[in-house]
């Protein structure tokens, strides 16, 4: 087993160790439950706004694990030990990105099934939502990792994480929730850009944080 898969496995085990990885899932389902209470029992209206509501919920749920992505590993010396072994910060960041997506992306997609039922979404909307989440959650994970690395050395970064990450996630939200033709392609493109760029941003941030 090579370094990449070892790191992914370690990060995944850590994400699920404290039940922390279930938090975004529970949060997402909770929002899907609260929304009909707030809007009222108008099935047609719920079906109309449900997709957008779930995308907003997914975005906020993706914020939850960000704080413990990078900072604990810097504090415990794990990042230093990886650097000493000649591992590039970009490779470590790419492994972290993969593990982070695996810990919340598939779970959110699974949770979308009961959430769609709660919001009275029809089959076509649900399919579109699932495809959108499949394309968009890697981008959310990439943003989360980059922001986690950038804010890792700051005190009280918890609140800052949301402020930095949410505006950057707006393109994902727009293209993900839009029913327009071609929106999914733009969503995929945005997501790809984030996934391709995040390891380099996070790697540079990790390096800068050491000095």
């Amino acid at each position, binding site marked *: *087993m090579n*370094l990449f898969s*070892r790191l992914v496995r*370690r990060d995944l085990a*850590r994400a699920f*160790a*404290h039940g922390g990885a279930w938090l975004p899932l529970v949060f997402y389902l909770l929002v899907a439950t609260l929304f009909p209470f707030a809007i009222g029992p108008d099935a047609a209206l719920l079906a109309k706004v449900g997709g957008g509501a779930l995308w907003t919920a997914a975005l906020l749920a993706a914020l939850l694990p960000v704080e413990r992505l990078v900072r604990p590993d810097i*504090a*415990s*010396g*794990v990042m*230093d*030990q990886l*650097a*000493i*072994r000649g591992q590039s910060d970009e490779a470590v960041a790419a492994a972290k990105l993969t593990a982070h997506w695996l810990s919340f992306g598939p779970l959110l997609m699974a949770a979308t099934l009961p959430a769609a039922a709660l919001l009275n979404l029809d089959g076509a909307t649900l399919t579109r939502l699932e495809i959108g989440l499949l394309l968009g959650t890697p981008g959310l994970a990439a943003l989360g990792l980059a922001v986690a690395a950038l804010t890792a050395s700051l005190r009280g970064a918890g609140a800052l994480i949301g402020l930095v990450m949410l505006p950057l996630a707006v393109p994902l939200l727009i293209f993900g929730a839009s029913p327009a033709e071609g929106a999914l392609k733009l969503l995929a493109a945005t997501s790809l850009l984030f996934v391709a760029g995040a390891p380099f941003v996070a790697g540079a941030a990790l390096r800068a944080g*050491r*000095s």
Partner: protein
Amino acid sequence: MTRLALEQVACFRGGRLLFEDLNLGLEPGEGMLVTGANGVGKSSLLRIAAGLLAPAAGRVARDGELALAGEAAALDEDQTLFAALAFWGQLDGRDDEAVALALAAMGLAQLAQVPVRLLSTGQRRRATLARVIASGAGIWLLDEPASGLDAASMNELAAAMAGHLAAGGVILAASHQPLGLDMREFAL
């Protein structure tokens, strides 16, 4: 051949020049104890030697694999001591036996199945040293290796260091207390 050399190294931290024009060279089988008051730059020197910190001037030449026992243990709190050490052992291409031997060398064999979060300060320190021993690296960088150790553990540490030097390894240790081993001293 394992070697470590620092040439005309300067360290600039937080707007302060900690040291400059620092030269030291370690040949196979040589150890060096860096002494000095708190805050004089002992840890920074080790981090520069490890390549974690870029020196403000000068250069560092390393010949061999590195192992660093820093301030933090770098062991996953939820894992058992053995599993946490084995993670690094596997990254270093070492088998479980090497990890078990390192645990025994630091008197931790009986704690192998205890989660890392339950270890005391001294045990944590010993676990950090066991990680270095298990790595099989030629160059050991030890930052305050003796802090929090009891007399018996001090002896185990000294024995492990002596064994490493006898095998042609290199040790650069920073400590404000003697390590019970005859090494060159370098006052920072």
